């Protein structure tokens, strides 16, 4: 696999050799190439840009420290994505634990929803509606079983192919297809139930 940066291709091998030699320039290159992808993946799970950046940083710290244990059973990118997903899920687990203990109440409208950039053509009402829809969607996504959620979220991330998702989750392509299909069906069911109640209540 080749990473591209400033029009210059860097192979997995070159980058890996540099990382294993603890060369700061190699690490910097890797971070510059992957940081946006990783922040986006994390944000898809945690729905908060600040938390996503923090988890992305933890991901790179782990990459830096564990590079010697990278066994090359997958590409470097797949390995990094796997760490990012695992870190994001750990973060959600910890957040849920905190919520269960009542230490932190989730806000009515999450910060992430408030930070969705609005397009210039949207009026205030449209912006509000988009934010609300995003919040409803995020909540429905969060209520999916973890394996379905991960497969579905990744399928909507950075144009990842089912093959790449299968590599990240260390499973097969048919299994990913099935997980994504079930996730979509469940998501529609949850949204159906939500809107039905809402429409009935509005009468």
């Amino acid at each position: 696999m080749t990473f591209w940066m400033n029009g210059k291709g860097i192979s997995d091998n070159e980058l890996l050799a540099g990382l294993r030699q603890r060369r700061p320039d190699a690490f910097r290159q890797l971070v510059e190439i992957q940081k946006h992808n990783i922040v986006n993946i994390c944000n898809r799970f945690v729905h908060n840009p600040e938390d996503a950046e923090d988890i992305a940083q933890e991901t790179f710290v782990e990459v830096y420290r564990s590079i010697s244990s990278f066994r090359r059973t997958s590409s470097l990118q797949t390995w990094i994505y796997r760490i990012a997903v695992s870190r994001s899920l750990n973060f959600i687990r910890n957040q849920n634990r905190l919520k269960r203990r009542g230490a932190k109440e989730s806000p009515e409208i999450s910060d992430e929803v408030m930070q969705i950039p609005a397009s210039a053509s949207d009026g205030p009402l449209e912006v509000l509606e988009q934010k609300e829809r995003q919040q409803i969607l995020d909540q429905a996504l969060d209520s999916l079983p973890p394996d379905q959620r991960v497969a579905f979220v990744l399928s909507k991330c950075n144009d990842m192919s089912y093959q790449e998702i299968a590599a990240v989750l260390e499973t097969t392509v048919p299994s990913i297809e099935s997980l994504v299909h079930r996730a979509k069906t469940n998501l529609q069911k949850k949204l159906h139930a939500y809107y039905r109640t809402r429409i009935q209540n509005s009468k």
Partner: protein
Amino acid sequence: MDDKNANETRIEQEIAKTMSRLDDLPILTAAPDFYDRLEQRLARLESAEHRLTARLFGNFRLGYALLLIMVLANLATAYFAGHPSNATDNRDQNLESLAAEYMPNMPSSLISGQ
């Protein structure tokens, strides 16, 4: 019946609109100082670990020093207490000095059994 159908249609429309948000997800870009903060974070972690290692290593050094002193003391005791020729020599000398003190007329050959 028409009301029910209208509701279903409205629900389907709402679902479609909400699901379409998935194709319209905002793309985040990492902050410009992302790498600088990462570097600082790594430096902080490494310095914290270095301090911990130094503390552990310091304790180990003290432990090793005490252990070494104890081993040396044991070896010295074993050497002096268990050295047979020295022990015999000391015993004979002690007997001779006792005899000289308490039995001044007895020949020394009798005392030592020779």
